[in-house]
């Protein structure tokens, strides 16, 4: 549809556009409020922490870091812990009394464990609200739920070891839940009646807490990230220091303390529950153990099958064309989802290797297309631009054709701005003005840097690339790789002769449309000023 406005300035200044924009922002917010809340908090944290240290961009690695604190503090605590029915509580109390060392270690162990669950919950809600759990991502989501359970079981078993009245409450509640399973036949709860408990119980719990569950968790976490490449397991230094200091200060101000020593002849009345771990136990006062277990299993199962409620169709996977592949392996290096592997050449060409794509793992993001040296729009040897690896639904040739078309449409305009966007940032189709042309890709990582050069040489005054916010690419590395390619730090690099002032690479979420419009207007004014001078 042809815009009634002569240029972006008129468009953006019009009341009609401003009202439409406000309506869109409100409509989008109420369409997915959790997502938009995250995007606003992201923006706030980007300002406070910087994108590099934004905790919401590193929830996974932050959980890993907190687990390290749990491990190290746990090892110290175990050294001074007495695994006996009479000694357990006393040894924990002795730790608390030594506030400057063992007490801090105990508190760090407790609070870091709680923080892990808080961070994991934020991680789950974030991935869900940003629609990063379905389609090609189903595996990570599906395998994440058992890990959450393992973490909770790890925490629960830790609470048993203190052997205070909270431990007594948790131990009896857990036994009732286990007794509801057919394999335990109802005999376990009777162990906690007065006089029935022995030191072997603590040996068993120490084994479960210190070895059994941690080993299973490490294995589970390895499975969880199996389909990702270059997994970030080390949290940025700034965030690590900040988180640790915060935990340390909390441990000093509010040291972790126990309830009264366990006494099996009485029933604990009022309990200061750790709701991060022990939230299931109050249900036992309202439901039978069997019903509680069914409820827990039902919620977990529902969580696990979320990727199929409903399922998300992933476009067809990329296809390798060996006629245009020199086996450089850059696509293999850049793929964020481990969908590409390299194997020995099968077509008899002089190159050693060739890429092979696993369609089940491919996200169809096109990042590999952007990394292929053959995806250069300036190649003149063929009428159809063919590359070594390409998206069937949106091939690189189609993007070159679209670029040519929009440049022709802009040819009569005084200002010619071409914007390359992505499917997960700002919807560029809503930005409609005669001096702007927009082309949307699955991911900005699909854009070979040579396209910037090509677009400028073929008449554009300026190129603007609008991807996801920095550090928050929907496809993990798209904007990161493109930025490195533009800076010349990763192949294929942007030609050095391209005037850096004539293009801009920005990262915006869908709530940042006003910033994008301001950005466009600044570019437009710069072009006009340059024209006058």
């Amino acid at each position, binding site marked *: 549809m042809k815009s009634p406005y002569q240029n972006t300035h008129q468009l953006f200044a019009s009341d009609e556009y401003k009202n439409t924009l406000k309506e869109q922002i409100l409509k989008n917010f109420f369409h997915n409020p959790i997502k938009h809340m995250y995007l606003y908090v992201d923006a706030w944290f980007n300002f406070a922490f910087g994108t590099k240290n934004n905790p919401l961009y590193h929830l996974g690695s932050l959980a890993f870091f907190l687990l390290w604190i749990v491990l190290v503090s746990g090892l110290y605590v175990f050294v001074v812990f007495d695994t006996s029915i009479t000694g357990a509580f006393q040894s924990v109390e002795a730790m608390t009394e030594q506030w400057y060392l063992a007490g801090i270690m105990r508190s760090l162990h407790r609070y870091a464990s709680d923080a892990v669950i808080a961070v994991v919950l934020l991680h789950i809600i974030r991935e869900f609200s940003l629609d990063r759990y379905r389609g090609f991502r189903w595996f990570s989501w599906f395998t994440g739920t058992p890990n959450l359970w393992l973490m909770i079981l790890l925490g629960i078993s830790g609470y048993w070891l203190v052997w205070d009245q909270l431990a007594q409450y948790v131990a009896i509640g857990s036994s009732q839940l286990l*007794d509801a399973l057919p394999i335990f*036949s*109802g*005999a376990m709860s009777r162990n906690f009646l*007065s006089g029935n408990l022995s030191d072997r119980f603590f040996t068993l719990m120490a084994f479960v807490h210190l070895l059994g569950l941690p080993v299973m968790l490490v294995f589970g976490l390895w499975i969880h990230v199996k389909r990702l490449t270059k997994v970030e397991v080390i949290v940025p230094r700034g965030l690590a220091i900040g988180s640790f200091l915060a935990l340390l200060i909390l441990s000093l101000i509010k040291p972790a303390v126990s309830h009264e020593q366990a006494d099996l*002849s009485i*029933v604990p*009345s009022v*309990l200061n529950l750790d709701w991060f771990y022990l939230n299931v136990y109050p249900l036992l006062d309202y439901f039978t153990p069997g019903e509680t277990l069914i409820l827990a299993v039902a919620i977990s199962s529902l969580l696990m099958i979320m990727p199929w409620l409903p399922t998300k169709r992933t476009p067809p996977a990329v296809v390798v064309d060996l006629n245009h592949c020199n086996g450089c392996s850059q696509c293999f290096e850049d793929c964020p989802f481990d969908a590409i592997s390299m194997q020995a050449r099968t077509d008899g060409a002089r190159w050693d290797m060739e890429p092979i794509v696993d369609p089940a793992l491919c996200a169809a993001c096109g990042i590999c297309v952007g990394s292929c040296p053959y995806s250069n729009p300036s190649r003149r040897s063929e009428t159809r631009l063919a590359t070594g690896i390409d998206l069937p639904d949106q091939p690189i040739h189609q993007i070159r054709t679209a670029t040519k078309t929009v440049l022709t449409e802009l040819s009569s305009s005084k200002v010619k701005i071409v914007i390359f966007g992505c499917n997960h940032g700002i919807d560029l189709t809503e930005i409609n003005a005669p001096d702007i042309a927009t082309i949307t890709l699955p991911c900005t990582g699909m854009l070979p840097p040579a396209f910037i050069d090509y677009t400028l040489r073929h008449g554009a005054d300026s190129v603007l690339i609008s991807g996801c916010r920095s550090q928050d690419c929907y496809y993990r590395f798209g904007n990161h790789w493109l930025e490195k390619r533009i800076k010349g730090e990763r192949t294929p690099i942007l030609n050095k002769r391209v005037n850096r002032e004539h293009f801009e690479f920005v990262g915006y979420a869908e709530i940042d449309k006003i910033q994008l419009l301001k950005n466009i207007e600044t570019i437009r004014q710069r072009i006009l000023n340059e024209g006058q001078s």
Partner: protein
Amino acid sequence: MKTGLRYILQTINYSIFMLIVWYFSVAPAYTHLDVCQSVVVLAFGHAGQSVSKCRKRTPEELAALPPNMRNPMICPRERSPIEVELLLDDKLLFTEIFNPQGVSGDWGVDVYRRFNVPSGKHNLKMRLKDSVRVKDFNYIYEVDVDLKAAQLLTIDFQPEKGGFSVR
């Protein structure tokens, strides 16, 4: 200035997060048992008596068996259900029939039931029937108790020690 402001904002954000972590690690407090209540737990493991008595095999039955399996006595594996009643101050608190477990119904049952009751003096009556071959309850026990607040009273059943006991 901007760096200083950022550090201040970071401190605020870390503080909010740690406040949430601390709060939910201990609060809100949960009242598991009201102040003026006590708990009675009925907990025992017991296998009911066989559904019928052992009997001698007839000569014909013995002859039909292989020589190495000619046990003169035949005892049925199936156990009787266990019927339990618990009365507090002559009011029925609990009654249930526990069927024997196992494919052949030859396993015992494990019972663990918890009851919150008002603290104070009470009369407790327990009845148990563990045989289909008797008409009425074959174990009966009655006791007066004075339960303190939050006290846990355990009712056990061990036939080899005479049946019910409380502690």
